[in-house]
């Protein structure tokens, strides 16, 4: 197992380095200048050039990449090109709100999604299964930002049940303001998870060990949760691991529509301003986060499935 983790960690480092190098190349391939954004239009050309040199933007891209990697190894992600604030501090100030949002969206997605999937599978072809199928496809089909807008218009403006914008202060206020964006971001995943789990469960339910369990007279409920779901949930866990990456991307729209802080909007604005240090720093951290979540998902699968555990151990 230790060897497996080392191999995955090595792969993760390669992934992160590749992503950062690609980011550098892409950022320098598009026109735009962080220096003019930082200094404003009234800065003289001499000031612009001096600042550009100060940021190292006068160097070839490959030199900038190597310098950046060197700085990262020293724990330095650079400084915000506009405000001069350390990038790590900027990102860490935004990260909690995005993590809360993703956690909220996961909660919205997982709890009903798994239950819907289980009930649909156990009532295959029945009324509940049919209704569940229609609902699943429906919530997947409606774009999340449309859901977000209507949630705002209905529950914030018309009914006044929830605030429309901001992240709030204090636990209760923060949770209150988290409800609508979490639903907007997580709703589509309910259907997605339900469909995957249903299909996976139906497959497992047809396997020999389940038939054997039934033959031994084990209760249907125990068969479902101890014999079927434990195996059928594995693809769902993999998808959830990948889904967190997608939710980080999806957080951008939620943060814009709901006027929330977060790393999604941070990087979105940074790209518009060509604020390279913020972009690379955020991508570095989110890529690292994504890689860690994927690793955690794989380890969880290994924990749940002895077959996988045996393969990894070998």
């Amino acid at each position, binding site marked *: 197992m230790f060897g497996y983790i080392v191999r995955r960690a090595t792969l993760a480092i390669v992934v992160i380095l590749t992503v950062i190098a690609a980011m550098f190349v892409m950022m320098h391939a598009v026109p735009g*200048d962080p220096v003019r954004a930082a200094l404003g239009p009234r800065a003289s050309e001499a000031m612009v050039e001096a600042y550009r040199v100060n940021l190292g933007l006068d160097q070839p891209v490959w030199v900038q990449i190597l310098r950046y990697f060197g700085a990262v190894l020293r724990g330095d992600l650079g400084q915000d090109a506009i*405000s001069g604030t350390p990038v790590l501090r900027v990102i860490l100030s935004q990260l909690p709100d995005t993590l809360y949002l993703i956690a909220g969206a996961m909660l919205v997605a997982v709890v009903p999604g798994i239950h819907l999937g289980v009930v649909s599978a156990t009532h295959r072809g029945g009324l509940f299964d049919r209704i569940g199928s229609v609902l699943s496809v429906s919530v997947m089909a409606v774009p999340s930002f449309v859901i977000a807008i209507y949630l705002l218009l209905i529950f914030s403006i018309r009914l006044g049940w929830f605030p429309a914008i901001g992240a709030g202060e204090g636990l209760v206020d923060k949770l209150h303001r988290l409800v609508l964006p979490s639903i907007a971001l997580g709703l589509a995943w309910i259907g997605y998870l339900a469909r995957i789990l249903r299909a996976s469960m139906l497959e497992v339910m047809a396997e020999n060990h389940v038939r054997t369990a039934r033959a031994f007279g084990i209760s249907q409920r125990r068969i479902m949760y101890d014999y079927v779901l434990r195996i059928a949930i594995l693809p769902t866990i993999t998808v959830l691991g990948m889904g967190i990456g997608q939710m980080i991307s999806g957080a951008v729209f939620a943060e814009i529509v709901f006027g929330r802080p977060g790393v999604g909007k941070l990087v979105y604005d940074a790209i518009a301003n060509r604020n390279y240090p913020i972009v690379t720093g955020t991508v570095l951290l989110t890529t690292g986060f994504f890689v860690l979540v994927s690793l955690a998902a794989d380890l969880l699968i290994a924990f749940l499935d002895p077959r996988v555990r045996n393969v990894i151990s070998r």
Partner: protein
Amino acid sequence: MTKRPTTTGTSGTSPTHGFTRRGFLGAGLTAGAMGLSLGGRPVLAQASAAGGTLRARLYADISNLDPAYWTSASDALVMEALYAFSMQFETGTGAFEAKPLALKSVTVRDDTHIDFELNPGIRYSGDYGEMTAEDARFSWERIADPANDSPYAADWAQLDHVDVTGSHTGTIVLKQPFAPLFTSTLPATSGIILPRAAIEAAGGRFTTTPPVTSGPYRIRDWQPRTRLVLERNPDFTLFDVDFEIIELLPIEDPKTAELGFEAGDLDHAQISISSIPRYAATPPRGATFDEFTALNYYWMGMNEANESLADQRVRRAIQHGISREAVVEAAYLGAAQPAAGIIAPGLVGNRTENSFNYDPEAARALLAEAGVTGLQVSLAIQQTAEDLAAAQIIQAMLADIDITVRIDQHESGSFWSLGIEADGDSWKDLQLFLFSFAMQPDPSWATMWFTTDQVGVWNWQRFSNAEFDRLNADAVVEMDPAKRQDMYVRMQELLEDSGDVVYLTYEPVGTLTGAGISAAMRPDGWPILSRFKRV
């Protein structure tokens, strides 16, 4: 207010197509709002500011609050609450009129000697004591000093030195007369006075953590990109302050701000241009909708260095081929008026008559005279609803005179480098472009971007005219308003005569203010939050 070319409205993510996230969100929000409205239930009433807290929209988060190095409109808005400006513009009036604030009096002894006296008892935060004339000297000379590389050095371009004659008195000594001193220097951020000790303690400059403040409010809490909370400064006595707390939420998308206002999360917000007609017709119950004409000027530029546009007759034909009224109506939905220049109404230098108006027959004749047929040009725009609507009308009108226009949409980061020589060769391919610049209430801010030394920087037309350059330099040191008026009008004539521009409009500003609040707004729709009142 930054001089940076504005990005009011939206910015997108893709440089080549017309679909943008924000644009789509905006359309969705509008459609959604209309859908709900059709349900017959009126929009909920705006909650009035409670508990002495004013909640307002900040266009973006703060990035630099140093008067010598600030960068954004949000910085300037917040600085007006944190520092006692030397002078401040009146609110609620139709004309720009600056009155002394930190300064008790300003006396023009002659064109190059301006005596000033500070109000006594203006206390700095911390242990920095009382504001003195020595502080004024330090602050103004700090911005002017080339060694400090302040982008705002031009605001004190004619400053020779400041004589300190007493603890609260002194004389501004200019090298030459300088008209913007009373319009865009002393009443703006460049007039802010800070103590030397505080700046030196901060290492010579600072960004988002001011080492000292002197204004009606001070920072209680700043959560980057989340909120900025200002609390009333009990030591401030220059005018009465109504709200104990001002809570500023950085919301870049005006559509989001509109929703926040309607949901009662904001007491004051600038709205999107496309929403102005809707809110003008039916503001949220209890709320006040106000409309202003900003100083921002909007025009279509033509790159005269581009081969297809090198012939002045072709550029003139394009001028005659465009109905400014139709473009402005399409882009601003009736909320703006066509312009005849780049200096807004209410300012010295405002021009009221265009030289070259819509005349498709004249346009066709000019193209024939130039021997041009089947001309194809590109029109570079940003990904805003206003730009796209204007571009489509321009495209249709120019098609009528046999000019084919390809609309190239760019996200803001790419757009603002198109004409800058230092950023590459894209300026050579630049042909037509829609531009919007913000400015301070002095005409010199409008014309300074069209001089020869701005070619390849912000003068993307590459317009170069010796008379224009001379007038631009002379008008800054001309103190007679009547003569300045003539000089700036002449400059706008020269610019239009070159064929390089089609003046379009001055952008409208719409604001919503909650019940029980009286907003303090400059004539251009700029809020002075510290002067908002409860009613």
